[in-house]
């Protein structure tokens, strides 16, 4: 998908390093156990090795954990593209399958980056199986 950026020029290497550090050292992301997966053309991928601490009372991964991973991959990918501070304005998630164990991977894809709003989607996989699909709007703050 072509990424259209109208808000600002591409961030500098230094800005990218700051964004990377900011996401990977964020207290909540660290608490959950989120790891860097890699960059791709229109987003980033983040990984989460599933542990018992991520389970709900039914013994499967809590939906909030999957949403947190997807939101982090979306925010990281969007910040990397627009170079501004941004925040989730709204997010819709479809849970496709329950997850018991393995490594979750969220891949974000920017659909359109405007001056004030960015629309993006993310897919969360566990191995070869897709476990969630996400469509979101982020607000660009400055």
């Amino acid at each position, binding site marked *: *998908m*072509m990424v259209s950026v109208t808000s600002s020029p591409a961030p500098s290497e230094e800005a990218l390093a700051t964004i990377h550090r900011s996401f990977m050292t964020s207290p909540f992301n660290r608490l959950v156990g989120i790891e860097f997966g890699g960059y791709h053309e229109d987003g980033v991928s983040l990984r989460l090795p599933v542990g018992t601490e991520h389970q709900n009372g039914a013994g499967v991964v809590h939906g909030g954990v999957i949403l947190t991973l997807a939101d982090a991959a979306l925010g990281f990918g969007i910040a990397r593209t627009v170079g501004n501070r941004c925040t989730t304005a709204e997010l*819709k998630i*479809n849970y*496709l*399958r329950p997850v018991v164990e393995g490594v979750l991977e969220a891949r974000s894809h920017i*659909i*359109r980056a405007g001056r004030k709003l960015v*629309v993006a*989607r993310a897919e969360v996989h566990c191995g070869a199986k*897709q476990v969630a*699909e996400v*469509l979101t*709007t982020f607000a660009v703050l400055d």
Partner: protein
Amino acid sequence: MRLAVREEHLNAAGVVHGGVTFTLADSALGYGIFKATGRPCTTAETKINYLKPVAGGVLIARSRIVRKGSRLVVARAEVHCGDVHVAEVLSTFVILG
């Protein structure tokens, strides 16, 4: 699914009414899901992000099934007008009967 934009599809601002874009996407989703399941189904919920206003041309909605369950089907659709991506849709359909 395609729709050639005509004047009756426009709103007071002179661009295609959001309901038109939504209807086209919903039709492409319903058709695609019916084709995949062979069973009657109906929209349970739909979210749409409008990306660009459209004043004319031909709208094309392309649906893709994300996951087909025994009762629910999750699918997404992209609506384009020429090279311009004008809407992104994520929907849940329920299989009837």
